[in-house]
Structures are given as C-alpha cells and as structure tokens.
C-alpha cells in the first residue's frame, strides 16, 4: 500500500461545527445533566468538539415529545402525499449541503470525503426520495372471507420508534432508519453512535427546515449503555430498530422483552463469504474481493471478510489481489487520491490489530499488510491472510477492519458448506459465469443478500437484512416501510352479497 501524506486543509475547508446539542421537540437543548462528551477526529486522535451527553432523562423528554407528536400532532394525520412532499424537501436540503455534510462525516468517522460527496450523501437523499414517493403507496387489502363478512386491512403507523444507529455510515444509517419510519407516519427518537454524533444533529436541523413538525424527529446523542439502554427499555416506545453488533443487538432485544415487549428489528454483524469459482474473470474477481473488504476501511457489516476461492484459480487470483492491494492508497480521507482513511477510533484500531495478531499466531499466512500505517491517527494497512481455516478466530469473528481471510475450496458442495459455516447470515457474493452455479449457490447460502458478479450493490429498492444471528427485519425497499406499520383487520357482516 501507499501512504499519502496530504494535509487535509489543502483539499477542503473543514466546516465549523454548528450543532452539538440534543434535538428534542424541535429545539436544540443541553442534556438534563449538563454533561458533554468529546467527539474525536480519527485522523489525529484530537478532539473536534464536545457534544451534549444524553441519558435516561433526556430520552424520557424525547419520547414524551415523540409520543405527543404521534398522538396529537399532524404528522401521522397528514396524507401520505403531504408527508412525501415534506420528505422531498428534506432530500433537497440534504443535497444543498452535500459538501459540508460529507466533510462532517469525514472528520467524525474518517470516511473518504470523495465517497461521501459522490456516494453517501446523495444516496441518502435518494433513499429519502424513494420513501417520499412510497408514503402514499401503503396499501391494505380487502379480503376474501370464508363467511358472510366484508373484511379489509388497514396499515397503520406503529407509533413512536427508537432508532439506534452505528458509526460506520453516520449518514447512510440515519436515513436508512429514519426515511421509511417518517414515510409511514411514525414519530421517533434517534440515537446516533457516540463516535459519530455530528451529522445526525445537522439532519435534525434540516428536517425542521423542511417542515417536519416538532417532536416527530428527536436526536439524542450519547452512549449505548445509558441513552441506548433507556430507549430499548422504554415503556412508551412502540418499536426499536437497531443496527450494530450482534452482542449489543442481544441486549436491545432483552431490554425490549423485559420492558413493554416492543417490536424489534435488528441489523447486526456479518462474516460474509465471497465465493470465487474457477470460471471467474480474475481481474474482476480480485477487484470485487478487495472492494468488498476494504471499502469504508472494512467497517461495513456486509464486508466480504471471508474470500473462498476455487483451487483452479486460487494461485493466480491471490497473486493478483496481493499486487492490487499494494497499490491501495491509505491516508488522509480528504485527499482525493486516497482509497482508505483511518479506523473510526482507538478501540477499533486496537481491536483490528489484535485480530491481526491472532491470525499470525493461529498460523494463517500474512500475504500483505498487517501493520498500522503512519505515526498518527488510526490507519491500518490493507491486510490479507491466506491459508485460513474455518476454526480460526479471524475466520469466525467480525473484525470490522481491512482484513481479508482467504480460503481454498474444491467443489461447489464444499464451498456452500464453508460459506454456511458461520453464525452470521448477512450477505454473500458469488463470482462465476456459470448460470447453474449462480442459481444453486444463491439458493443454498443462508444469507439475506446474494450479490452475483457484484458486491455491495445496494439499492433503495433492494431489501437488506440478515439471516441467522445477523438479525431480522429488513432495511430498504418497501419491506422497510412495512416494518414501521402494523396491520389492523376490520370485519363487518354482510347480507345478501351477490358473491363471496
């Protein structure tokens, strides 16, 4: 890999941070305790600013505002079309501030500025527009009953929703959760990750500007054990939607079960396999494998962290990938020539390095990388391990960093078995030109998304979510809108109907 020593100020003017307080009932307010916490620039480890630290009392206030907005406010009583119009405006406002928002996510999360500007932020607006257009397309059904009854279903917004979102895509995750819930007519309390609280607060400000009524969208910055726990155990939240690790997902579900049995959807970890078959185009396969694991510094739940390669193509592919990985540029995420920025914080940085240590000790072959990059910040070299066995820690655990585990297989059956040999089931990739392999393997892998000859190909209309311990409930697509609606059946007797 190459290291870029750019100075970010020479690329982009770092924006002044405008919003650092909690957003409750349409106002930016201090936390009840008055406490604040630091948010850190992962490029340097330096403090960007201090942000209000929400806790249980603040969550209570936010839920109260959301409850009132749902029970008495206009939002769920607007037509879907009117809600859609406001969401369209929200999307336009997001697009108007694309540079500033991309820069905020870059300093807060270490994400590539160019990717934020061309990808994360515009895609978030696109997702918002998708659901804006979907808000008036929520259809119930009239039903064929077995008796003399007229029956139909109404799809109603579920109520007050708690969203707990992670730090790897501060913008993408925010809109993944908030857009369908808003379109459905819900009100909500969003808790962004403590590592990346800044853009969510900015979006709260834009939501207000767009005309989303006070109390509909509340943002509480803070920690999982305090604010997050208060959301998942709250008696007056009707639904909690969480994206994060499987360990924390379990706690969220437990809290929901022991409080008010609120509905839960979980989008959790993964150890997604990318299966490359003998007939694959080597160049394309190498690119997909590298992008799959290195995109967003490997901090993506769907990362292709296990690359399974058929023996006939294995040597050539490994050579190709190693060469390509060495041209990968790690450095300041504001530098447009850079491919990879720093890991989000010291904890993650240490964790990834410790897994690399495990890999070495467990006997996997380190082909490239394996070390921190530069003296400052949390940069890690793109790392590839070969000869990884199914029972090694680096083949089992979600590392959430730029670390690929390469494995070899002989037959399709073996590939399927290896691919399914995990407690996760978020996504998988298949690289082959053979239609039968593509069809068989795509049905055999127990995962929520299968990418054939592509990887990380997200689309607003494609539902995304896990099998097994990768969670349940889908984000994106019209399925996500249904997640924030519940179904009411209405039944009335009929007399002398000419048909049944």
């Amino acid at each position, binding site marked *: 890999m190459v290291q870029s020593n750019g100075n970010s100020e020479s690329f982009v003017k770092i924006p002044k941070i405008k919003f650092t307080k909690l957003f409750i009932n349409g106002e930016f307010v201090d936390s009840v305790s008055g406490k604040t916490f630091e948010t850190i620039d992962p490029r340097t480890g330096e403090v960007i600013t201090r942000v209000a630290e929400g806790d249980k009392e603040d969550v209570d206030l936010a839920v109260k505002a959301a409850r009132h907005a749902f029970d*008495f406010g206009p939002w769920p*009583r607007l037509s879907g079309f009117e809600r859609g119009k406001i969401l369209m405006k929200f999307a336009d406002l997001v697009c108007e501030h694309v540079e500033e928002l991309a820069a905020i996510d870059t300093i807060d999360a270490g994400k590539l500025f160019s990717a934020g500007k061309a990808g994360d932020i515009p895609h978030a607006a696109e997702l918002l527009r998708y659901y804006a*257009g979907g808000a008036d397309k929520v259809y119930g059904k009239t039903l064929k009953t077995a008796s003399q009854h007229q029956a139909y279903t109404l799809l109603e917004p579920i109520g007050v929703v708690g969203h707990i979102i992670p730090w790897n895509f501060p913008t993408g995750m925010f809109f993944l959760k908030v857009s369908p819930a808003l379109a459905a007519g819900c009100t909500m309390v969003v808790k962004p990750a403590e590592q990346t609280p800044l853009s969510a607060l900015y979006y709260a400000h834009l939501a207000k500007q767009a005309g989303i009524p006070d109390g509909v969208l509340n943002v509480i910055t803070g920690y999982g054990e305090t604010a997050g726990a208060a959301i998942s155990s709250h008696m007056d939240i009707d639904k909690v939607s969480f994206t994060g690790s499987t360990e924390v997902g379990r706690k969220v579900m437990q809290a929901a079960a022991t409080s008010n049995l609120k509905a839960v959807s979980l989008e959790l970890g993964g150890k997604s396999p990318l299966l490359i078959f003998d007939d694959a185009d080597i160049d394309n396969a190498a690119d997909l494998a590298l992008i799959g694991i290195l995109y967003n510094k490997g901090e993506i739940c769907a990362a292709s962290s296990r690359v399974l390669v058929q023996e006939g193509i294995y040597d050539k592919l490994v050579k190709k990938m190693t060469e390509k990985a060495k041209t990968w540029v790690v450095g300041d995420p504001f530098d447009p020539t850079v491919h990879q920025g720093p890991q989000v914080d010291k904890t993650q940085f240490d964790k990834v390095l410790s897994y690399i240590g495990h890999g070495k000790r467990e006997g996997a072959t380190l082909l490239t990388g394996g070390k921190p990059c530069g003296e400052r910040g949390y940069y890690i070299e793109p790392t590839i391990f070969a000869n990884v066995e199914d029972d090694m820690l680096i083949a089992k655990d979600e590392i959430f960093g730029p670390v690929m585990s390469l494995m070899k297989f002989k037959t399709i059956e073996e590939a399927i078995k290896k691919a399914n040999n995990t407690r996760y089931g978020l996504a998988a990739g298949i690289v082959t030109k053979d239609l*039968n392999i593509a*069809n068989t393997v795509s049905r055999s892998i127990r995962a929520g998304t299968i990418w054939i000859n592509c990887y990380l190909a997200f689309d607003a209309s494609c539902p995304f979510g896990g099998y097994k311990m990768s969670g349940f409930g889908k984000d994106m697509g019209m399925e996500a809108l249904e997640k924030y609606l519940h179904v009411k059946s209405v039944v009335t*007797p009929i007399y002398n109907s000419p048909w049944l």
Partner: protein
Amino acid sequence: MCIYTKKELHSSHMLSEIQRTESREQIAEQSMTARRVSALLCRSVLTSSVSLLARGNNTCIGGLCRFGTAAAIEEPINPAISVDYTKLLINGEFVDAASGKTFPALDPRTGNVIAYVAEGDAEDIDRAVSAARKAFDEGAWPKMTAYERSRIMLRFADLLEKHSDEIAALETWDNGKPYEQAAKAEIPIMIRLFRYYAGWTDKIHGLTVPSDGSHHLQTLHEPFGAVGQIIPWNFPLLMYTWKVAPALACGNTIVLKTAEQTPLSALYVSKLFHEAGLPPGVLNVISGFGPTAGAALANHMDVDKLAFTGSTDTGKIILELAARSNLKPVTLELGGKSPFIVCEDADVDNAVELAHFAAFFNQGQCCSAGSRTYVHESVYDEFIEKAKTRAMNRVVGDPFKKGVEQGPQIDSAQFEKILRYIRSGIESGATLECGGERLGTKGYYIKPTVFSNVKDNMLIAKDEIFGPVQSILKFKDLDEVIRRANATPYGLAAGVFTQNIDTANTLMRALRVGTVWINCFDVFDAAIPFGGYKMSGQGREKGVYSLNNYLQVKAVVTPLKNPAWL
C-alpha cells in the same frame, strides 16, 4: 369526474374528528392547532372547492344569481394569455402537419376562434410513431434508471406548479370550465398525480415465483414500448395526466392524440415537460380529429398498446381497429349512466347537494356523472323540491368570472344534442322542474335542468346525455333499486346515500360498477382506481392499477441443479 366532496360532508367530517378528540378527554391547545394544520394541509384542495362549488342554499353571490346574468355571458372576459403552441409536437419539436392543414380551436363562450391548430392525419401519426419507436428502441428514456425518470417527472410537476395560472386560463378558454375549478382543483390534482406516479417509477417490482419442478422462476415487468393514447375534451389536462403519467412512469414512449375541441393545454404542458428534461420522441402530441388521426393511431401496426377515453360508440371502433391491425392491447374508459341512490335514512340536505354536484359538475360533462338520481319514496317529494331550488340557484356564466359554477357546453354539437334530449324528456312525459333551455343568445350555455317522475324506459334515463340534466326517479325497496340501477349497459360508477352500514355493505357489492361512492361522489384521489364494468370499458386508471395498463409481464425460467429448497 371531479375532486370535490361537499361542504356539509367536509364539516361533518371535521366535527367527527373534533368529537373523537373530545372523547379522549385531552384537548390540548396544541393538538387542536395540529389538527387544524393537518386539516389545512390535507384538504387544501377540498377547502377551496367548498367555497367554490358546494354552496348549498345560498341565493346570490357577487351579483350573480340564478343562471347568472346576461351581461356576464354577452361580454366575455378576455383571458390575459397568449396561445404560443399550436403545432404538432413530434420528436421534441413543434412542426406543421404534413398536409399543411389547420383547424380552429373555438371558445365555447362565443363560438369564436381562439387559434388555428395544425391538423394531424395519418402521415403525422406515422411520423410521431416512428419518433416514439426510436425513443423507445434506442433512446435514453427506458434505459435510464427509474429514479432518473422520477426526477424528470418531479421537475415537470414543479414547472406545472410555477405556471399553473396560465395553464388553468388556457384550459378554461379552450374548454369553458370554471377557471376556479381548473386553477384550484384540476391543475393541483394534475400535479399531485405526476408526483404520485413519479413515486411509482422505482417501485415496479416483479415476483419470484414458486415452481412445481426444479426451476427458478422470476417475472420481469417491462414497458410495452410505443403507446398510443386518445383523450377526450371534458378534462383535457386531467385525462392527459391519467394517461401520460403512468405510461411514462413505466418507461414507455407515447403518441397522444388530443380531442379536436381542446388541443391547446396539452401542447403547452408538453413543452414544459421537455424543459424538465424529457428526451425528444418520448412524448409526441398530435392534434386532430378522431376519424383521421385517431383512427390512424388505433390502426397502427407499430403501436404496442392503446388507451382511449371517450364514448362507448367510439370505443367499439377503437377496439375493432386494434383487433384488425396488430392486436394491440386496449384500455377503454367509456360512457356511463351512473345511479345516485338516496335511501330513506339518508341526510336529505346532504344528498340533495351531492346529487346536484354529481349531475351538474363540469357542465354535466363527466363520464361518471350521477345522471340517474334514485330517491326513496319516503323522501322523494322533499328531495324534488330541494333539488329544484338548488338547481335554480346554480350560478351559470362566464367561466372566468369569480363565483361561477357552470360555464358553457363544449361546442355546438354537444349543445344541440343536449337540447334534443331535453325535448325528448318533455315529450316522453317526465316533469320538467326547472331549466330546459339555453341561457343567453351567444355561446353554448344551458340552464341547469331537473326532471322528476322519470321512468326507466325513457331515453333520458337510458342514454348518456353529457350535459346539465338531472333525472330523478322514485324507488320503494332495496332489491328493486339494485335491479333498476343495474339495468343498463353501463357500469362506471354509483353513489350510495345511507347511514345504515348494512345497506351500504349490500349496495356496494350488488352494484355492477367500477366505483361506488358512499356518502360522497366524484372523489378522485390519485390512489383510487377508476374504470368501468360492462360497456363502460376495460382496464383501470389511476392508483397502482394503472401501472398494469402499461407493463407487460415476462416470465423467466431456468432449471435448478440441486437446489437447497423449492
């Protein structure tokens, strides 16, 4: 067709909302404010329409009483707009007809010429189809992402909003409909529909399908290709929208033939559509006559799908031409003789107002007009008296004048036809309660006309009159009214007025029609499908249903080797 419910209904709706709130015991000031905001946001169109059309028993507004004043009709208000687009729109450009011929677009207030418009014929249809064909086979439109298509449609909606005053004025000038109706209801609904279908573009999903054997099955929903659309003159822009918006959302290209009575507004808005980024050739607009341009389109071997709204007689010709040429699939939205049933327990004042609205809205020129008013014998006399009073209070006059409820009929042919039907009603023994003649000496104004004692076998109870004529019939019991309401070749819509849930449930299933409005009429939400049973047509427009008109389903099948499951 129309968009309004009436004032009383609206207020009773509001009232029930308020009562519901009260029963919750908590009427926080804020919640009431929120409700008002909500009501305003939700019903801005309805609210404006309320002050406009549904004004019940008032007698005099702004000096315009009972059928208007002669002055309003004799001296037409000059609309402050110019007519800039009169040529055919082919491949993104305005061009003369191949023959060089033109025809006059007439002002129905006076019969005077507004402008001369290029007259398309078979050769122009050929040119337009070949442009549409090329735009579909080679062009960007079906190949761009659905999201990009939606952005262009949304930009078009924004432009419509920006120019809505001019568009509404042009519509009124060419068609004779009240300006306030065009400006406050029809154009906003047009905009809303384009936004609605923009939202569908990226939600057109096929299915993956379970198979009996070891096969993987999936369906792809694909656009037809070059679509032909023929629209009527009664709602030039709304009919344009019902056709164009879903066809484009699905990725088709279009040749649209407008009615010869109302060619102007479609040309104007299509120009805006191109400004919004619509690629050339995707939407071609041909002005001209049915027997020439319309027939050429229906008969064309290279048009993949046809959609028509108009009379049942013309619909038959269209279907036959499609069958004789390339078997193109056809959507038809045709005539109606829709019953409006007032049961004994109905709120009579409410029913009178909505029955009046159902019969007279848009000068009675609605395919869904409630042209047979069936009233239960127990409320019949009271109903007749009130219906007559309401009709006599209807404000007829220059459609540009504020407060006018009814303008002129579209043209002299319709005008004469309606007067013939009125004569037939009198001759066949129906009681003429009011109206029955033209208003003024210029243009095509007809006094709101109410007949009572109408019998099922009279021509005025059987034929679609398409004018401001209400026929009131008496009935005794539910079975009888069901039988009589269904005894028609038409099946477009029906209105049911009752407070009894069992009566409502029985009627809504027993009536053989495509739309049943219960305690309302002519409610046209973007999401509500509209279309006919029986000889009122085939296919449904609006809502998710209209997408089916413009998509064909491709099944894709491939064998599965050792599938993990079936």
